[in-house]
């Protein structure tokens, strides 16, 4: 048998810098790669589960066919390079060794041993253990028991260190150090995050690194155990194997790929000097054939003589060249640049001094990138909209962000990028922008409305006061003043209606959007129907009919709005209370639904009509119901209800009540709510109720408020019944 040592034969075939996968075995000889060894330099050995033992240079490994036992019992877990060119191999049913290069294998068959870990003792005998949890020794082809060798839990890894003796990691009983019967043990009681251990590695400084199953990475240094897990930035909490590169960085295998972490960072986190480690993570996107390292046994990976780090995965050996992954600690994270902004498919200039989106913009997309010529695909981005929710998104490689239906306002879009080691750029990039409001959503519009109302009602109050002081002497002028007051009241009433319409705008928009949306869809569908060489004319006719109907529907919404907006002189007539409340409910139902409030209207059929002005009375009802809806903003969802009831009272007046289930009115508030400028709302003008009371008084009725016995408050107003029906 001639073994030719080649110098890491596959290296010149690296298709991608840093990570190369070499297949092991084909067909029947294929098995899960579980153990790796190099002996001599450049000649690699792979123990596979079901596929026997393979050897050769990387990329050109072949089944080792010279040992009949390994052919018959191909379920192998470990292969180990021994001193003086020897090699140890073990598996489910056997353990064997060869003492020198070119020597023959001596295989000892075992019964149900399930060997998982092997180590060479100082006297060159092999110490091994497996699923039985018992340490045994193979000397001269015979298995011997060892003193204090029962560790009760399956072996997962063994390692030799500077001290005499061996380290044993078990799956359930923690960590042991065994030296010819002298036993020491570390468990969760001594600080291990878990007793389920997977991998061991003792470094040159004598620190023992321990890969656990679910508890992250632990280490034993100067007699104390420390650990770091994924909550501190580790890529995975189950680790096997642990390798070390020439720079002293640890490379950790896991079922989610391979990661590199610096010892210094681990020490810093354990000592509380730093909050997290910043591992470099490799996975399929870096050329791994599958992201999982099988790596359940020892040794499952190794650092080759040429400095490559080899990991076993299901069907491959993955070689990582650590030199291709220079530590990035000194290099700054990439700078992010926002490259393009698109609003509803229209490009905007991100460098514009003031980036403003038009009213009603539906969708905006921000495209960004960062520059890193070495590894552009490893940059991760996160972004946030500071004013909307303020949370950073989960880091991803996506280079764009999309937002839909942002309400009008000023925003700052922030984006940041991180290097492959998870270090974020200090500032990132940001872009302030504005979503412009429709005119009725603007501050100037609302301010103007408020100012006009204030001017109007201030004048009204003053006139009334002056009228009262001088009424004895100046009856005539009083009459004039009152006429003026009435004029102003109309003006104020009109302006409050305009302001109210602003509050209603979202509900009205919803109502308009239904027919407009239907018209749009119908028109789009119609166009597509027409594109057919033999268009379905019946369908197109039906579409046109529907478009006309929806147009009328949209028109009636606008008519209702205009009715409210029109400046208008008092027009008294007989009005049905049911119609009046129905119209108001129609305007507010969508708004109520949006606020999860049940709107309940109860008007008896036989209620006589009232005498009054439609628009003004609508305004009062709208005002009371909107107040009631506002009062429920913080109420529990189940009890949110506004009820509007009407009845004929004892003095033949018609009483309309608006009740809510909110917090009610404070005793101090109850006395003041009808005063001008008294408001409990952040955006209120405090005019609604004052004007409402004036309107009701002008109709010969009263408006008052009371707190309910249960939760909430009730506003009631009375109106005289129209004479022609009052007597019945």
């Amino acid at each position, binding site marked *: 048998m001639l073994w030719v040592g080649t110098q890491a034969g596959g290296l010149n075939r690296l298709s991608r810098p840093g990570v190369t996968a070499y297949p092991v075995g084909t067909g029947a000889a294929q098995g*899960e790669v579980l153990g790796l060894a190099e002996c001599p330099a450049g000649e690699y050995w792979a123990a596979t*589960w*079901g596929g026997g033992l393979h050897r050769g240079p990387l990329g050109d490994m072949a089944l080792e066919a010279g040992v009949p036992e390994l052919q018959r019992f191909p379920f192998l877990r470990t292969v180990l390079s021994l001193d003086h060119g020897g090699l140890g191999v073990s598996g489910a049913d056997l353990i064997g060794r060869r003492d020198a290069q070119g020597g023959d294998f001596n295989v000892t068959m075992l019964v149900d041993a399930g060997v998982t870990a092997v180590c060479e003792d100082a006297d060159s005998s092999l110490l091994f253990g497996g*699923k039985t949890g018992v340490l045994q020794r193979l000397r001269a082809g015979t298995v011997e028991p060892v003193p204090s060798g029962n560790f009760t839990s*399956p072996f997962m890894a063994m390692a030799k260190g500077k001290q005499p003796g061996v380290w044993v990691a078990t*799956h359930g009983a923690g960590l042991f150090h065994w030296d010819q019967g002298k036993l020491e043990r570390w468990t969760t009681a001594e600080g291990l995050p878990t007793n*389920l251990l997977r991998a061991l590695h003792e470094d040159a400084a004598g620190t023992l690194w321990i890969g656990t*199953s679910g508890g992250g990475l632990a280490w034993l240094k100067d007699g104390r155990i420390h650990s770091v897990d994924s909550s501190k930035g580790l890529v995975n909490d189950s680790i096997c194997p642990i390798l070390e590169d020439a720079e002293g960085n640890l490379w950790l295998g896991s079922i989610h790929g391979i990661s590199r972490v610096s010892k210094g960072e681990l020490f810093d986190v354990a000592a509380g000097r730093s909050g997290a480690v910043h591992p470099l993570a490799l996975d399929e996107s870096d050329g791994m054939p599958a992201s999982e390292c*099988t790596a*359940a046994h020892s040794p499952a990976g190794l650092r080759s003589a040429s400095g490559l780090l080899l990991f076993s995965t299901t069907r491959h050996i993955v070689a990582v060249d650590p030199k291709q992954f220079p530590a990035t600690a000194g290099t700054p994270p990439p700078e992010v640049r926002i490259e393009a902004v698109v609003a*509803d*498919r229209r490009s905007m200039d991100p460098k514009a001094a003031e980036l403003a989106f038009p009213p009603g913009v*539906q*969708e905006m997309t921000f495209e960004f990138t960062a520059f890193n010529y070495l590894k552009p695909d490893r940059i991760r981005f996160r972004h946030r909209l500071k004013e*909307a*929710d303020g949370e950073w998104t989960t880091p991803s490689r996506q280079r764009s962000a999309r937002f*839909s*239906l*942002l*309400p009008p306002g000023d925003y700052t879009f922030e984006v940041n990028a991180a290097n492959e080691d998870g270090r974020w750029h200090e500032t990132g990039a940001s872009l302030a922008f504005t979503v412009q409001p429709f005119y009725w959503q603007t501050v100037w519009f609302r301010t103007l409305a408020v100012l006009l109302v204030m001017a109007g009602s201030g004048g009204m109050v003053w006139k009334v006061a002056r009228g009262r002081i001088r009424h004895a002497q100046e009856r005539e002028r009083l009459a004039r003043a009152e006429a003026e007051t009435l004029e102003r009241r109309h003006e104020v009433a009109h302006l409050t209606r305009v302001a109210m319409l602003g509050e209603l705008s*979202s509900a009205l*928009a*919803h*109502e308009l*959007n*239904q*027919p*407009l*949306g*239907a*018209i*749009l*869809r*119908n028109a*789009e*569908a119609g166009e*597509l*129907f027409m594109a057919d060489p033999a268009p379905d004319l019946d*369908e197109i006719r039906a*579409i046109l009919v*529907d478009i006309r*109907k*929806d147009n009328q*529907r949209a028109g009636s919404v606008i008519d209702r709005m205009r009715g409210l907006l029109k400046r208008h002189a008092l027009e008294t007539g007989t009005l049905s209370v049911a119609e009046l409340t129905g119209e108001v409910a129609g305007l507010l139902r*969508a708004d109520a*639904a*949006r606020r999860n409030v049940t709107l309940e209207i109860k008007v008896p059929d036989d209620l006589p009509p009232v005498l009054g002005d439609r628009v003004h009375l609508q305004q009062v009802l709208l005002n009371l119901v909107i107040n009631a809806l506002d009062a429920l903003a913080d109420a529990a969802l189940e009890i949110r209800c506004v009820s509007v009831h009407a009845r004929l009272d004892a003095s033949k007046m018609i009483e309309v009540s608006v009740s809510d289930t909110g917090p009610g009115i404070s005793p101090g508030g109850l006395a003041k709510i009808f005063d001008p400028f008294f408001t409990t709302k952040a955006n209120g003008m405090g005019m609604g109720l004052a004007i409402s009371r004036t309107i009701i008084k002008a109709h010969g009725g009263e408006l008052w408020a009371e707190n309910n016995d249960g939760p909430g408050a009730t506003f009631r107003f009375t109106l005289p019944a129209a004479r022609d029906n009052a007597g019945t």
Partner: protein
Amino acid sequence: MTSPLVYIVDDDASFLTATSRLLRVSGFAVRTFPSAAEFLARRDAGAPGCVVTDLHMPEMDGLELQAALAETGNPLPILFLTGQGDIPSSVRAMRGGAEDFLEKRAPKEMLLDAVKRALARDASDRAARGRQRAAAARLESLTERECEVLGFVVRGLLNKQIADKLGIGERTVKLHRTAITTKLGVPSVAELTRLAQAAGILP
């Protein structure tokens, strides 16, 4: 395999008809429902597809529909339509796994793209669920006791521990293990674990 259906749910009859026309003429198979309750009662429970629903509806709204649908065995992707931007609802909808969130008057391209995306996602979700069912079907050949043993094996328990837990002999456990690997044709614990994961036995 039945072709995927686009279910449209909207309480506004006119919008419902118009949207269904547009989707039909664009080549989708469409069914319409005037309310969420009716959709839940009358849809083809197992059929592939996606839902296009109004966010604000009386009685059961879009978000409640989303929650109800998530509890069924056939959680179709949902596309929400809304009259106007409503950030809290859209955040809730997206957290609940909404496919998309569109304004009612969004351009047709956006709607059609979104429906296509939703159907594609349904197809891939369905394939994933199919794989899970296939894995579960393989496990069905096991007896109850074998299933129990498998549950322990994939959690890494030793024969001895399994025997203790089940109150049976270690030898019997070994027999069960042999039966499991033979029936499933899976050689290693790693493969078994993968199968159990695919079948949803292991998290």
